[in-house]
Structure formats: C-alpha cells, structure tokens
C-alpha cells in the first residue's frame, strides 16, 4: 500500500502577523525524526520549543527503516514506542549468504525479559507522522512551523538568532539554544563554515522500495556475490504495508541517473523476487560516507543527529545514533535552562555523543570495507573469510554485512561514577539500563521522571532532586543489576543511563554522585 502524503498546514508565524515574540529557550531547526523527538523530549520536561522546517511533508521514500531496541525504548519514553512497535515489522534474525549458501546467521535478542524487540522496520514517513502527531499533544509547548526555512544564523555569547524565510516573508528569531537537527546536508553547518571531515567510500548502492505480496519471513537477508547480481552484494528487508526494501551494490562507475530508470531497476529486482508481481514505490542511489564534526557544540548552536555525524547505512547506525543524541541532550538542556546545571553539562553532550558517533563510524566503516574491499589484501582477506565461513565457525563471525546498532557505554568522565565492579558489567555506570520485567510492567517504564535513586532489595536513600524507587529483585533484575550481591543502590540519569552504583550507599554519597552527574 503506497503512503498517502499529507501536507502539514502552513500558518503565518507570529512576528509576521504583527505579534512580537521574545527570545525562546530553544529553537529546533529540522522536523525530521531527530528534531521532532527532541521537541517531544523537551516538552515532557516542560521546555517550550519552536520547530522550524523548510518542508511541509514527512520524509519522501522510506529512508531510515531499521529502529533498534534502544531507540524503541527512547520512543516509548516519549510516548510513541508502542504505536511504532504495533505498526512496524518486528525482526531479530539476520541471514547472510555467500553465493548460494548461508554463511552466517545472527539473533539480535537472544535473551528474554525486555519490553522492546531487538529491531523493527518502519518507514521514516510513518515515524515522522507519529512524532508530529505526538507533538500535537503539547500545543502549549511545541510550536511546529512548516515552510519556515533558515537562511542565516548569528551567534552571540549567550544566545543565537536565525533569519527565517516563509511564504509571507522573512523574520528573525532568537533563542538561548539553537538546535541544528537539519540533516546530513545541514545548511546551518554550511552557513557556519564547519569542516565535515571523514571518509567517502567509492561505491554506489541502489536502494528501492517495492510493493509486493510475498511470504518471506521477517528477517534481514544479505547476500555476498549472489547468483542473481553479478559479483556484487544485495539486501532484502521487509517493511509494513507489503513494502520491501532492496539494496543493490552497483559499483563506483555506475551512473546514478541511468541506474534509477525503471527499465534498469525492474530487471534487477525481477532476479531477486522471481515472477511475483511488484511495483516500484521509491528509488534512490547513494554513496557511503562516514563523517563527523570535530565538535557538536558551538557556543549556543548545538548539532544533533545527521548534521553532526553521518555513517554508511549497513548497521542502522544513522537514525538510531541521532535518537540517542536526543536522549542525551534533552535532559541536559532542560537542566541548564532551569538553572539546575551550568553550561558545562552541555559540554558532556559533546564528549559523550562524539564517543557514540565514533563507535558508530568505526563499526560502519569496517562493514563498508568488508562489503566493498579494495583490490589487493582487502579483497583477498574478504574472500578468504567468505571461503572459510562454510567450513569453520570462527570465520562466520568475521563475515561483516553490518554490525547492527547497539547503544554505546559512555566512557569514564567527571559526570559518571562511582562504580562497584562487583556488580554486573551489563549495568555499569555509563551504560543504558538494561530493561527487565517488574511488577505491573517494565523497569524502564518506571525510570521516566528525571533522576532516580533505585534501591534493589534495599531502601533507596532520600536525595533532593531525585525520585526514589524500591524494587524487590526478580530473576531478571538480579542477573542484570545484582549478580551475587544481595542488594544495591543505583543512581539513574534521566536518559536511563546508569550514573553511579553501590552495594551500599548513604544519602551523602548519592547526593555527591547526583551533583557530579549534573556537572555542578
């Protein structure tokens, strides 16, 4: 079923209706998944935002389709996770084939006791639509302005300003914080003349959405040198509404405009899907790039998502990485705007998310290199791994068709700790809290109100500025948070990452860790 694009209404912005507006706490540029999620995150913390977007429809084409478990947990905190999981295609099995035989299979969620599935596939247009609808639950806090294009940015010591073009003319808007969520081609990044350094891989991929009735299972299928696509690689992924994603490696010499023509696309797809009837819904040709800004925070302008870092797509680390940026930034901005923390806390966004971006770039660059080896040693080792994979289990694990998005553990810093290493590694400070079933629901559903002091089998000390939660550990909580310890105290950040933990702790120790986590 083809997606019916709905145009969002344009309204004359207040300054062009003669209503002067003062400086805003936060202005978000870009109404993609990252900008919209950030507006919702800030709204849940009581922070009003204006969201500016040059367009007035959701993403054209499916674009980002794979949403990872951690992203779904964040979406759940934002109030849209259950709707996305209900609509999306849940999957966890990936099969990688070389020529005509399977060489590697992975299961992304081998353990039970998590609310969110390992992955869903859901077209970016559905994700954006659900996020826009969720924004509309906060009419007093989120001001969505479509067909509002930023044409200039000014930076000052403690604020920033943007010039905005609309169908009714231009206006200027000031903000304490200007949040550039304006995508891979970020106009703001260009206006500020910032270097977007990294690596371009000399390879082109054709990406197509087709509409087709087929009973293939909901799995990720990847082929190296498939019999149907001469010496190249291919990927097949199921999306809702009988839409299928197909990626085909074309080689560097391919002409994107020629390859996108139906007479060239259709025969290629025909070789994969056989004689099933199908229709082409969307086609694009892209190259792989891994780049990031040297810094994400430039005074009062903060880059979030693809504007700050881009990765090649195999591994689903682009969209998911962007949503994790939002998760990290939202509570910090809210704390700084409320005067509970100084601007140093925003610097910790820069450090923590650069670490996350580097991990995503490292993994996706390695996968890209495996898929598109240079002649010589790269090609020899790639082919050796594929040849051995049919004969020895160790080589199967070396087959790299993309290492799928996992949240990073934030590295040691003054904002994180202390740790008690006797407790399980899975929930060490810096890591996102592993979910677990608790009475009446899930652990992560109970960690949504700012900082939480969690007492597992112990009374959590009372600390100003943090909620208290006592739980009696069941087997999942015990395995993920206690190990052999009879009880423990965890300080959990508003982004559900562990800030600090102890087997025993008094109010003073917890309060000190809370101050450190806020950079106070």
């Amino acid at each position, binding site marked *: 079923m083809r997606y019916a694009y709905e145009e969002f209404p344009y309204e004359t912005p207040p300054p062009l209706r003669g209503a002067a507006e003062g400086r805003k706490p936060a202005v978000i540029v870009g109404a993609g998944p990252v900008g919209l999620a950030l507006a919702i995150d800030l709204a849940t913390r009581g922070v009003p935002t204006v969201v500016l977007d040059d367009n007035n429809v959701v993403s054209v084409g499916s674009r980002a389709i794979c949403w990872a478990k951690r992203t779904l947990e964040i979406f759940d905190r934002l109030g849209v996770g259950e709707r996305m999981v209900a609509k999306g295609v849940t999957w966890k099995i990936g099969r990688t084939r070389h020529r005509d035989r399977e060489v590697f299979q992975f299961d992304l969620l081998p353990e039970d006791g998590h609310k969110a599935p390992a992955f869903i596939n859901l077209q970016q247009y559905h994700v954006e639509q659900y996020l826009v609808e969720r924004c509309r639950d906060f009419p007093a806090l989120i001001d969505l302005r479509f067909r509002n294009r930023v044409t200039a940015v000014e930076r000052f010591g403690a604020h920033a300003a943007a010039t905005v073009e609309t169908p009714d003319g231009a206006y200027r808007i000031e903000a304490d914080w200007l949040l550039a969520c304006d995508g891979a081609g970020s106009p703001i990044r260009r206006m500020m003349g910032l270097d977007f350094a990294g690596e371009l891989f000399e390879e082109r991929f054709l990406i197509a959405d087709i509409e087709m009735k087929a009973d293939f299972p909901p799995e990720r299928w990847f082929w190296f040198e498939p019999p149907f696509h001469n010496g190249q690689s291919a990927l097949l992924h199921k999306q809702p509404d009988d839409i299928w994603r197909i990626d085909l490696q074309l080689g560097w010499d391919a002409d994107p405009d020629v390859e996108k023509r139906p007479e060239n696309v259709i025969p290629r797809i025909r070789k994969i899907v056989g004689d099933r009837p199908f229709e082409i819904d969307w086609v694009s040709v892209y190259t792989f790039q891994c780049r990031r800004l040297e810094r994400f925070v430039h005074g009062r302008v903060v880059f979030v998502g693809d504007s700050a870092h881009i990765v090649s797509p195999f591994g689903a680390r682009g969209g998911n990485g962007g949503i994790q940026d939002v998760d990290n930034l939202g509570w910090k901005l809210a704390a700084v705007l409320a005067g509970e923390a100084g601007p140093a806390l925003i610097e910790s966004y820069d450090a923590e998310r650069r670490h996350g971006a580097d991990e995503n770039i490292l993994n996706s660059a*390695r996968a890209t290199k495996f898929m598109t080896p240079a002649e*010589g040693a*790269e090609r020899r080792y790639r082919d050796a*791994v594929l040849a*051995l994979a049919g*004969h020895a*289990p*160790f080589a199967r694990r070396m087959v790299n068709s993309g*290492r799928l998005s996992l949240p990073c553990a934030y590295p040691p810093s003054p904002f994180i700790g202390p740790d008690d290493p006797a407790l399980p590694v899975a929930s060490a400070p810096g890591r996102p809290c592993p979910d677990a079933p608790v009475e009446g629901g899930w652990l992560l559903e109970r960690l949504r109100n700012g900082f939480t002091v969690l007492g597992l089998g112990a009374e959590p000390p009372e600390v100003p500025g943090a909620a208290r939660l006592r739980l009696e550990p069941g087997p999942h909580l015990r395995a993920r948070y206690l190990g052999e310890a009879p009880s423990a105290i965890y300080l959990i950040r508003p982004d559900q990452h562990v800030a600090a933990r102890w087997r025993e702790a008094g109010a003073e120790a917890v309060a000190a860790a809370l101050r450190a986590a806020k950079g106070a």
Partner: protein
Amino acid sequence: MAKLIREPNLPDQDGFYAELLVAHRGLSEAESHALDARLVLILANHVGDREALREALALAREAGADG
C-alpha cells in the same frame, strides 16, 4: 582428537581484522604476499602444535576447493 580450534576464539575479531588490513596498507601486491608469508610463519611458531597446524593446513586447502 581435533587439536585445531574452529570455534570463535579471538576477542574483538572486527578490531583484529581492521589491524590486519592496516598492516597491508601501502604495500605492493608482492610485498603484501610476502608479509602474509612471514605472518604465517610467526603464527605457526606461536601455535607450536604440529597436529593443530596440520589440521589448519588441511582446512585452508579444503575451503579453497569450493571454487
């Protein structure tokens, strides 16, 4: 009794793979093959088990026979 480990035994295998490719960077085809030959001899000495090495040689031959 098989002596050769065929199950995954290398921590961070992607990291090792990347280091292996870096070691070959900038070498000519002949230099690259020569590096590999030296590497095989170094690793064989480290393994130090004739039976495991015999099995490794057989596995390498066998996996190359698929065409």
